[in-house]
């Protein structure tokens, strides 16, 4: 088996509603998936993740654009000829077949028979830690076991690409965490190129080599989890991944190490993308962990606090700007109560100024989106 290279080139999908209106589900998406990579499509409900995945699988046809597997356009291949294993949110096990027969289904279609078949099926079941359940029916399994069977079934055909559509969303929180690390382990063991759809950002972070953040049919940003978290390309990405507040301030200086931005009258050196000029206004992403509570030059009003045990989460206000902060050190300093004034400082090395061009782009795009939603 070999892992495939998957490329999406300017793929667009327009659906026609029964009333004849057009819905742009996927809008000009370009992606490159290196062989063996684990890529998640992450975004809010309705942003086009499933549609993108289904176009890769062949269940939807792109309205425009090309999908290439190992440099060949697969547009004219029906889904059964694509050799892509798919794991469905609803498991989609064949209810009339046993676990063994479910896993054997695709292998048989490849002409494997007899002992080879048994071995392939057993190996796949072993991979997902399902021993001794081969004779059961899907209805006699728990949800987690069913999803393992679905995983084994998709992997047993030794696919070039594995596709997952929110495979864990029907499971309880604990099982989700354990199964997702299992999926990651198996994927790394086999080295199969994988595309994984989720709207759970922690799942995306934990699993992926590349996170693709989507919004209203478009790719907002694609990058490694740390890059997407650390250097979000847009307000949307920063907001969607982790929690973030945004502070605007004038750019006072541009240096190779970062920007000097004035926030609340204090100059802070922040990491930034290219393209900022002195005198422009910059939007700075402030994450709760980039605010130090307890000392600093800025006086903030405590508007609310949530006690989380090891941490305390504060809602702070300076002027008319509201932002969140985490205090990991509350034990030594004590708790602050709403109405109190506390000194705070912004930790420049943990801040990030959004690239200016993308900012305006996003704004234009945002109005685009509302149009689609409105019509």
């Amino acid at each position, binding site marked *: 088996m070999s892992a495939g290279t998957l490329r999406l080139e300017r793929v667009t999908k327009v659906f026609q509603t029964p009333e004849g209106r057009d819905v742009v589900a996927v809008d000009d998406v370009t992606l490159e998936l290196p062989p063996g990579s684990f890529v998640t499509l992450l975004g809010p409900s309705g942003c086009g993740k499933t549609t993108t995945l289904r176009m890769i699988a062949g269940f939807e046809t792109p309205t425009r654009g090309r999908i290439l597997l190992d440099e*060949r356009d697969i*547009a004219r291949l*029906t*889904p*059964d000829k694509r050799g892509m294993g798919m794991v*469905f949110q*609803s498991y989609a096990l*064949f209810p009339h077949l046993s676990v063994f027969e479910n896993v054997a289904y695709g292998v048989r279609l*490849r002409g494997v028979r007899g002992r080879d078949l048994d071995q392939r099926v057993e190996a796949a079941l072993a991979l997902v830690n399902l021993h001794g359940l081969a004779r059961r*029916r899907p209805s006699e399994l728990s949800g987690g076991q069913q999803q393992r069977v679905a995983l084994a079934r998709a992997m047993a055909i030794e696919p070039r690409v594995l596709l997952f559509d929110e495979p864990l969303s029907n499971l309880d929180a604990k099982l989700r965490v354990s199964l997702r690390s299992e999926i990651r382990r198996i994927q790394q063991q086999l080295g199969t190129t994988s595309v994984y759809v989720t709207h759970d950002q922690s799942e995306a972070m934990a699993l992926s080599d590349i996170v693709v953040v989507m919004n209203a049919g478009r790719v907002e940003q694609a990058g490694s989890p740390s890059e997407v978290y650390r250097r979000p390309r847009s307000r949307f990405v920063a907001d969607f991944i982790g929690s973030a507040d945004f502070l605007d301030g004038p750019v006072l200086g541009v240096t190779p190490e970062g920007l000097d931005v004035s926030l609340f009258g204090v100059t802070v050196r922040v990491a930034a993308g290219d393209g900022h000029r002195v005198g422009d206004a910059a939007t700075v992403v402030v994450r709760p962990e980039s605010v130090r509570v307890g000392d600093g030059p800025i006086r903030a009003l405590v508007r609310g606090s949530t006690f989380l045990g090891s941490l305390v989460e504060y809602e702070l206000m300076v002027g008319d700007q509201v932002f969140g902060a985490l205090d990991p050190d509350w034990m030594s300093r004590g708790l602050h109560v709403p109405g109190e004034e506390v000194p705070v400082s912004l930790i420049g090395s943990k801040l990030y100024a959004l690239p200016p061009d993308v900012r305006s782009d996003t704004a234009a795009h945002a109005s685009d989106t509302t149009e689609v939603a409105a019509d």
Partner: protein
Amino acid sequence: MDTSALATAGGPGTGLPGDGQEAAARGRRRALDPAVVVALVLSVAFVLIAIVWPVLAVIGAALTDGAIPIFQRYLSPPQNQILVNTVVLGVVVATVGTAIAFLFAFVQVRVPANRWLKRVLHVIALLPIVSPPFALAIAAISLFGRSGMITRDLLGMRVDIYGLPGLTLVMSLSFFPVAYVSLMGLMRALDPALDEAAANLGSSKLRIFRTVTVPLLLPGLASGFLLLFVEALADLGNPLVLGGNFTVLSSRLYIAIIGQYDMLTGSVLAVLLLVPSLIVYFVHRYYAERASVVSVTGKPTGRPSEVSGRPARAMLLGAACLVAGLIVLLYGTIVVGSFTKLLGVDHTLTLRNYEAVLFGYGTKAVTDTTLLAGLATPLAGLLGVVIAFLVIRGRFPGRGALDFGTMLGVAVPGTIFGIGYLLVFNVPVQIAGFTIIPKLTGGAALLGGALAILLVYILRSAPGGLRAGAASLQQIDPSIEEASISLGADQATTFRKVVLPLIRPAFLSGLIYSFARSMTAISAVIFLTTPQIRIMTQQILNETDAARYGNAYAYCVILILIVLAAIGILSVLVGSSTRAERTSGVNVGASR
């Protein structure tokens, strides 16, 4: 071994015609599975040629100048009496039939009674489905006719059962089972919590029945009523046997074509029959869909509240038993009559009737009918579920039209197909001098007209398979099929290995329905039989006409036995529905 499969998978375009430049130029065409294309083309061709064309031909024939005076004649007194009769018969039969259906369903679901009694009532209620619709009419003549064993011999009355009263009796009893089955399904699906909620709010039992149960069942009742109305309108066998002077459109139409060779009048009458049938049929479908939506409030929990008052119980059970007794009496008459020289006149026991039917001149009718119905059954069943699959899962424009076109097969009265086939297929269909379709009806028809009869059997039965298949497909998660496809199975394999097993109960009931329907059909095929092909239902009619009731009864009994045997064989062949349901783990039952 699998590496080769993977090589194909990994080498897109290999071995695919039209790859490359040409394909790119043609743009973003969806990659189509060839099996789907073939299925689609065949289904559409069948619907257009076998269903739509004959109907249009009838309409076309009635839209000529010469037809106008005929329309005028049948729309103004005194001839409009036929139209009035037809509507009156439809309304009366539908009302009585729906009432009986409701009574039987209510007794099954809401009246506490001995389990065995209920089972017996259920089986009796289903009997009319497996017998020719006019079997009861013949028995009714023997029992209640001018020289009826009960009316004249027992009670000394001189009543005339011919006409509206007799037709109401036998048609209500013949047609109510379909409404009964669907109403019972609806009642079972009603969430008992609704009743409990009403009781909790302080409603009395009777009040709950009036304000909760009946309104919720109203779409179901409406749909049953309308269906019975259409059936009554379309029925030809009973009016021919028992109509007497009470002429309705279908019997008048039959006389016009068979007795007077007047295709024009026949077509005009057909259009007069077609318009109300179509309207009412599709209103019925609307209510049928509404009814199934209403019943799905979630998974019903608890047991439906039962009728606890003694007098009410006794009344309901008594009424159901009375009707059941009447059905048993009528069928008993058929069985006894089949072993009797001439019921009501000469009660000598005899096997002569069977001898004539099985080993005499009836042999051919028995074999011909069984063969044709047996051939039509798998074809119609398959066509029905394939079209269901295309309509529910397909994503091509015009799915609704395909559905509609197929449903015309039952929405349009059979007599109209009879005329339509005579109009269209009585001459070879030629395009540019080439014969595309040979002559299918009349003298010197291909295979003695067997093909035309086969087509009619299929088109009358396929809609049943379509509805059963569609209902059960809608319960199956489409991802299950997508999973199969993503594992490398093409559409045909997926259909065979995943879809068919999952909808097996529906498929089986589709097959049974198909066979029973074909064996008992008369209204269309009566126009298409030739001396080379004999059909049992028509023979029964002939024997009745000639007052050879013994033979007619023997035919009926044999026909019923053949249908019952077929049900047994099909159940074994296709697998019992209970097993399929238990093992599938998903709710695929559509036919309950």
